[in-house]
């Protein structure tokens, strides 16, 4: 589904991502782990088009997407969430989500001026989509709350919903469980499984090892921009380099 070939990104003298080659298979949960500054978010930024790679190629669904803009990548079906989501706090949760489906609509400025049936249909579709994804992430009950008034965990779910509203094929989640309590983390993990059941592919960055180990089908470990290991949770747990660089001896023993 997503193939990365020799991906490298240099910022001046710093090499944030160095010659990473890996593949993410369809309908699987893939995790990227590694210490802070390992290049995980940069990796996401490269895949989603925010940074242009210094070298290497990104193949998505058989198509070379290297160097495309974020909005072009999004249209092809790559959605992502950020570590923190900036919502419009003075509007309702539902209102915040309607724009998420805009990329699948075709109405232009002139449709707006003449209030055409195409525009009305597009707006209807976007609203229906927003309600659908809100229901999917289990937030229908706060649809009419102001975005300012919802909890941190609900914010995370809204971020998921926004990504889902774009009708993606793969969803990149940047620390989906950052800043939420253990119980809520379990709920979010269940939501990620639900996305897989729906046929999506997930790629996530996360520091919560318990969550990753129980959730991921495949783990990629980055350290100083380099991929030092990839494999199943069991393989990663017993990998000597990963234990040294990231997990620590305690975790391996447990």
């Amino acid at each position, binding site marked *: 589904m997503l193939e990365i070939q020799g991906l490298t990104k240099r910022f001046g003298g710093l090499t944030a991502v160095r010659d990473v080659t890996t593949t993410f298979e369809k309908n699987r949960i893939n995790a990227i782990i590694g210490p802070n500054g390992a290049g995980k978010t940069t990796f996401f930024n490269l895949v989603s088009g925010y940074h242009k790679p210094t070298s290497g190629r990104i193949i998505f669904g058989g198509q070379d997407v290297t160097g495309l803009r*974020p909005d072009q990548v999004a249209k092809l079906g790559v959605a992502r969430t950020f570590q923190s989501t900036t919502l419009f706090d003075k*509007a309702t949760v539902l209102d915040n989500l309607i724009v998420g489906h805009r990329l699948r609509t075709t109405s232009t400025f002139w449709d707006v001026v003449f209030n055409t049936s195409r*525009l009305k249909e597009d707006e209807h579709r976007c609203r229906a989509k927003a309600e659908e994804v809100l229901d999917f992430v289990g937030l229908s009950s706060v649809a009419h*709350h102001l975005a300012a*008034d919802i909890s941190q965990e609900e914010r995370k779910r809204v971020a998921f919903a*926004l990504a889902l509203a774009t009708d993606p094929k793969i969803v990149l989640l940047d620390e989906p469980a950052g800043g939420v309590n253990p119980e809520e983390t379990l709920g979010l993990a269940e939501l990620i499984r639900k996305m897989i059941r729906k046929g999506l592919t997930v790629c996530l960055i996360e520091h919560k090892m318990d969550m990753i180990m129980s959730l991921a089908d495949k783990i990629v470990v980055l350290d100083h921009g380099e991929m030092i290991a990839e494999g199943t949770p069991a393989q990663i747990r017993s990998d000597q380099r990963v234990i040294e660089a990231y997990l620590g001896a305690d975790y391996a023993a447990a």
Partner: protein
Amino acid sequence: MTSKTLQKPLLAVLLVLAIVFPMVAANDYYIYVMSLAYIMAIAAVGLNLILGYTGQLNLAHAGFMAIGAYTVGILTVDYGVPYWIAFVVAGVISAIVGFFAGLLSLRLKGHFFSIFTLCVGFMIYLVIEKWDALTHGTVGIIDIPAPTGLGPIRFDNTWSQYYLVLFFLVVSLWLMSRIVHSLLGRAFIAIRNGEDLAETLGINLMRTKVLAFVLSTFYAGMAGALYAGFVRFIGPAMALESHTFDMIAFILVGGIGTLFGPLLGAILLTWLTQSLQFLQDFRMIVFGPLLILLVMFFPQGLIGYWRERQARRAAASMQDRRLQRSVIGQQQEVGTNA
């Protein structure tokens, strides 16, 4: 929900008040001042689209208003073009210049964009001031004809011009209302909230921002064209950034990113300025602290504050209803258990 049911009658009342205003105004001067406030409001409504809804502080807005005004001035005075043709051309030219200026300046983000547009505005001022042959330079353009009559309606006195300006104000607000409440408006707001997130949602940043910029300069051009036909004298100073700052003040007072904020701000500040005329330049001593208090206590502007309260009340009433329903449900359960 309550805010929506409340809105239509309120708008109707406001429109009636605006129509009745000249009949109750003490003298023609008041009508004149109000018309000017409306013209500035049209320009501010345009600025609010790029600043309030799209989050890009364009400091060249007065420059684009001047381009509209000068297009009308030059075409009618020097080339004898009828006012209404010049009027349409003014909007188009402002939008075309806006397109190229936007394409260039929107490559920059945040403060860099603002500083760049500050320079664009000053360049427009310089071109107007120095290009004597085209713009009459520092002398300005005088004796611009009033808008020519349309059929039986004439626009040769303050009353009829007031209604003409009011007509365009209503059209401006109506069109802006369509834009900001549509999917397109949601795309603008998404960019304001966070450019990265907006891009992730598949919004083409450059194209969307340029569209907002062009629309806002079109509004500026139309306001300038009306201004030229109304005041009938224009000078290069109208392109200066101080006029952009006036419009920003209107937007901040009335409510940034609200449909009627710029109008409310334009009317309030215009009349406040008028009533403080006797203080001359010292009126800034009153103005400054007032603005500071407003930004401290109503950072969203007056309409922004009102809307936030409305939104909160609406959200609370939805929650209440849900709560009541669940309480009733529990009571019924208790009843069946007993």
